């Protein structure tokens, strides 16, 4: 069997920084993978990471995982591919990862070629693409315009497998990429070595989540795939983990709106004819996955803009009279806050612009308007008063007014001055800092798969 009749892939974990067992990585390396891959990002933590440039996992956790992966890859002489660096994969996230990787190289006395693939998008490039009619909304999508581009703190493109393959052709040993398709990290090399694209992309979909496709996964860990001919075999590396045909089939459901069709830049992965067979009690063989190449190559965009600064007050209510009229209580509170803010900002109404909201836990704090239960059956409820405004100072000022108004808001059942909210903290407010919103759900058609993703090569160590 020549090397490329079979391609072996080791996925270190579902998200770099979430961890894996060192013994699992060693077990994977003993199977001689052609490369190690690891996804490092997600929109799961929300728009804050993309907007603020911060990472969702602590640097120490990322450093630990990266160090083990780099050492394993370098000692075996195989590439390491890390995608969606620093959660959101923008410029500051990639810069942070670059620092960590260079530090590790120095500490471990390793020398290698590091490729950094940038994914943060130039605003004038996006405006030009928009003007050329090459930006298309997905469903559902917010409005996209030059204004949205200008307002955005950051917009990233989700790269396909091509920039990774180019970096490898140019001699990269370790690739750290900005925002990527999770699957592209794992699919590119197998396809380039002749594996059928449907199998490569389906295996990639499983690998990008680490051990998540195992029957039960008590903590994040590694996963291994062997791809050849008309099938691939998937196997967890911790001895106590196992995959079953159902657990592997079910993985295509996770965080995915369509379980049979996964849309990628270069085409659609079609799992409708995939079959799953138990090889033994731990390994599953998959066949029949297909890939339809796209007519037009598209890159998904993710953007975030600042929604303002937020301050909140958490309070509890135990009085059954207030609880039974909580909706009208909130309405009266709203009116009082609006009146007071008007008075405070009479000389500068624009500065006083804000959004005030009250979340009511015990009623519909979790489901909001979708909550089908319309009665409150608890003896106590939790409220969160929330103000979003242009500055932290204004947000805190207004939420402090709301706290005070709420604290003493009268109800008809009681005569006299009441204190109707239990505040557990002093100060009662929490400053949440800047908050962001996702503002783009669109694809752009680039001239080629590379123009949005410049590659920088650095000699590490």
């Amino acid at each position, binding site marked *: 069997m020549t090397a490329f009749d079979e391609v072996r892939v080791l996925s270190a974990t579902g998200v770099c920084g979430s961890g894996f067992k060192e013994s699992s990585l060693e077990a994977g390396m003993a199977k001689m993978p052609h490369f190690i891959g690891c996804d490092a990002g997600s*929109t799961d933590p929300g728009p804050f990471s993309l907007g603020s440039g911060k990472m969702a996992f602590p640097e120490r956790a990322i450093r630990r995982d990266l160090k083990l992966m780099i050492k394993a890859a370098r000692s075996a002489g195989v590439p390491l591919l890390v995608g969606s660096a620093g959660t959101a994969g923008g410029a500051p996230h990639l810069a942070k990862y670059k620092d960590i990787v260079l530090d590790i190289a120095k500490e471990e006395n390793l020398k290698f070629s590091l490729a950094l693939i940038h994914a943060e998008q130039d605003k004038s490039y996006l405006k030009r693409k928009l003007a050329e009619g090459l930006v298309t909304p*997905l469903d559902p999508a917010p409005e996209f315009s030059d204004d949205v581009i200008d307002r955005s703190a950051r917009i990233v493109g989700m790269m396909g497998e091509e920039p990774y393959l180019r970096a490898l052709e140019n001699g990269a040993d370790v690739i750290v990429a900005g925002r990527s398709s999770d699957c592209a990290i794992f699919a590119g090399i197998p396809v380039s070595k002749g594996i059928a694209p449907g199998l490569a992309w389906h295996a990639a979909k499983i690998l990008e989540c680490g051990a998540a496709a195992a029957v039960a996964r008590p903590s994040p860990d590694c996963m291994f795939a062997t791809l050849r001919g008309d099938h691939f075999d998937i196997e967890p590396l911790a001895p106590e983990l196992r995959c079953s045909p159902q657990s592997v089939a079910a993985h295509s*459901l996770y965080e995915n709106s369509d*379980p*049979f069709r996964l849309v990628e830049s270069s085409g659609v992965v079609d799992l409708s004819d995939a079959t799953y067979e138990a090889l033994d009690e731990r390994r599953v063989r998959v066949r029949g996955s297909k890939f339809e190449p796209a007519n037009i190559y598209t890159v998904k965009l993710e953007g975030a803009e600042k929604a303002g600064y937020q301050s909140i007050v958490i309070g509890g209510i135990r009085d059954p009279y207030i609880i039974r009229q909580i909706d009208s209580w909130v309405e009266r509170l709203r009116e009082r806050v609006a009146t007071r803010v008007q008075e405070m900002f009479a000389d500068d109404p624009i500065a006083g612009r804000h959004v005030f*909201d009250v979340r009511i836990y015990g009623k519909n704090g979790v489901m909001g*308007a979708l909550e089908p239960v319309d009665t409150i059956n608890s003896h106590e409820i939790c409220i969160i008063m929330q103000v979003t405004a242009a500055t932290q100072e204004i947000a805190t000022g207004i939420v402090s007014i709301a706290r005070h108004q709420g604290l003493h808001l009268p109800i008809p059942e009681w005569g006299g001055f009441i204190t109707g909210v239990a505040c557990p903290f002093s100060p009662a407010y929490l400053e949440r800092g800047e*908050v*962001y919103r*996702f503002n783009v759900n669109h694809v752009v058609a680039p001239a080629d798969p590379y123009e949005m993703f410049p590659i920088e090569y650095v000699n590490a160590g």
Partner: protein
Amino acid sequence: MTKLGEIAKLIRSKNAGPFELTFDIMFDTVENYERVRRSTVLSAALISEIYHLPVEKVKFFEVPAALSFKASIPRANFQGDIDDTDSHGGQQYAPLIDIEIP
């Protein structure tokens, strides 16, 4: 009649990206999966009713290899917006637990 939560192995919800919400209803036996499938109770129409959406906004799938049903809907609020209540979308499945299966 049995409640769906009593025969499902797992009922869960999660974001499918920041703009969509997806529900997975999974079984551990073919019998239970088939019982629910044959009942035809689970459908795009039922999901649209529970989550107050036009039926054409609901994607509904039977996934026999995974002994699962899946439904995906647009999010009422985009993930992380200031009026969003559930950033990961992880607690939106509760009303599905009580669906009655004959």
